[in-house]
């Protein structure tokens, strides 16, 4: 719904995409490059109007490949930047998401998932890009991805995404879905002083002493921006800590483990899950995004029937919260994984559960959501 001159910091009745766009502004995003695609278009639309009002730049590019490149350029120019897309555009962005990983360029990419593959269901819900988020670009890397399940959560996770991208200098992927993007609900926008915004960590070293990829806190190098007098080299080719390309095994052995360890060694900090009724649960439903809401409703229905059902909701999906799943697997009879795809995150749950309990999968090809009664039936079929 069009809502000009949205005043900040109060309650609104807006859709998830608009909530995301407003949150981006509060997180400090001042650059958006993208190519409109349903069901993410409202993010671009909203920012096209709002960014100029706050001194930022909105640019509609010729495609999603160029959009990603523009975002990376803007970030090295000193701005916080993002793009938003859906499945087909997300596919095109993959190469340059890899470039962002390799050049350690903090940025946020929103994928409002729709039914796929290919053009698929342009206007209807899907959750089929979850593995693409993790593995879509080539080479060995780690990434951070979040899944919101309401407009309000979309708001907070957008800020969280910017913060994490600055802290770890990785692209952070916001894996929303059509339902969450398009549904309108009450969104409370707090005053900016109440929000924790992680600023970019610029170096205090003078030019000459500064090395662009020298490991600092958490293994993450400090940044500079173009025009500040530092001579830097930023490349997607394997490089040393000065940023100079060296195409050999030694340099690769130095660089890639550091990139991967930024996430792996700090993964405890990146566990973000929520549990409902799991204390005494015999069956725990596992889901993320809009599906997590269906699961909470199922748990509610199940409890009315005295069935001991709980819910594990994944907020950060990548890196995957292995420990949380393993702990649950050790105390329940079954984990039932529900997602709007034909089986993606269920593989992670199976891996993390290490055979301690049964792992059941309930998929949905997209275009709609699971029926709560179907899930309830599946729960009742779990062997005692």
């Amino acid at each position, binding site marked *: *719904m069009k*809502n000009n001159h949205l005043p900040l910091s109060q309650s609104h009745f807006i859709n998830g995409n608009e909530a995301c766009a407003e949150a981006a502004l509060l997180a400090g995003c001042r650059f958006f490059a993208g190519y409109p695609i349903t069901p993410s278009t409202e993010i671009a639309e909203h920012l096209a109007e709002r960014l100029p009002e706050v001194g930022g730049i909105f640019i509609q590019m010729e495609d999603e490949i160029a959009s990603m490149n523009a975002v990376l350029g803007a970030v090295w120019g000193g701005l916080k930047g993002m793009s938003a897309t859906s499945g087909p555009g997300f596919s095109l962005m993959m190469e340059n998401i890899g470039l962002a990983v390799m050049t350690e360029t903090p940025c946020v990419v929103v994928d409002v998932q729709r039914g796929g593959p290919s053009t698929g269901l342009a206007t209807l819900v899907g959750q089929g890009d979850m593995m693409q988020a993790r593995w879509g670009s080539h080479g060995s890397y780690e990434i951070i991805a979040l899944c919101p399940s309401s407009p309000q959560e979309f708001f907070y996770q957008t800020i969280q995404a910017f913060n994490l991208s600055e802290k770890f200098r990785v692209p952070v992927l916001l894996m929303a879905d059509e339902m969450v993007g398009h549904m309108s609900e009450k969104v409370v926008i707090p005053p900016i002083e109440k929000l924790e915004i992680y600023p970019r960590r610029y170096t205090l070293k003078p030019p000459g002493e500064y090395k662009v990829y020298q490991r600092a806190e958490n293994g993450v190098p400090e940044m500079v921006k173009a025009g500040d007098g530092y001579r830097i080299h930023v490349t997607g080719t394997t490089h040393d800590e000065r940023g100079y390309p060296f195409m050999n095994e030694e340099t690769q052995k130095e660089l890639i483990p550091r990139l991967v360890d930024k996430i792996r060694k700090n993964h405890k900090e990146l566990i973000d899950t929520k549990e409902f009724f799991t204390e005494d649960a015999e069956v725990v439903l596992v889901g993320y995004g809009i599906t997590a809401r269906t699961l*909470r409703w199922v748990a509610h229905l199940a409890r009315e029937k005295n069935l001991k059902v709980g819910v594990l909701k994944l907020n950060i999906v990548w890196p995957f919260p292995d420990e949380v799943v393993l702990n649950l697997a050790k105390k329940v009879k079954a984990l039932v994984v529900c997602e709007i795809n034909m089986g993606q995150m269920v593989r992670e749950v199976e891996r993390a559960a290490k055979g301690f309990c049964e792992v059941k999968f309930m998929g949905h090809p997209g275009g709609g959501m699971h029926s709560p009664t179907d899930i309830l039936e599946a729960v009742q079929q779990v062997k005692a």
Partner: protein
Amino acid sequence: MKTEIRIAGLGGQGVILAGYILGKTATIYQNKHATLTQSYGPESRGSACSACVIISDEEIFYPHLTNTDVGIFMSQDGYHKFNREAKDSALLFLDSDLVKPEEKDAGKLLFIPATQIAEKLGKKIVANMVILGFLARHSGIVTLEALREAVGSIVSKKHLELNLKALYQGYNYQVEKVR
């Protein structure tokens, strides 16, 4: 308390806007929870179109309708597509010039010639406001005062008077038949 509302009509009748106003009224002006989802297709004006609104005192988990309490129908197609999902005690609000109901729904119906009233006011696109006013009077889901505030926050100054007039006319309409 939870109320599930289906609004259906044709693109261009303000069906989605009516849903949005209901949701905004409930959340911002009556401090309740509300969720608006819509059938979202590539079509726009002139094709089937529907909005789902859930209003509740508690947090809403599942955003689809499972038990429709209120139906608002502004086209025959919309009525036929969704009248069966309404529960036995549901209230169905119909634009009497545009929808011919089925016999079996007789006990649930409330009629108002919303489009005709809107046309007399000068613009048939405010039929959605007429029906919202009518709904406020006969359903108790939202109050007229809260509705008026929500409409005031959305509609531009230039069109506000017309929209409020439509809202009041719907509210004050002498009902033809209550169950």
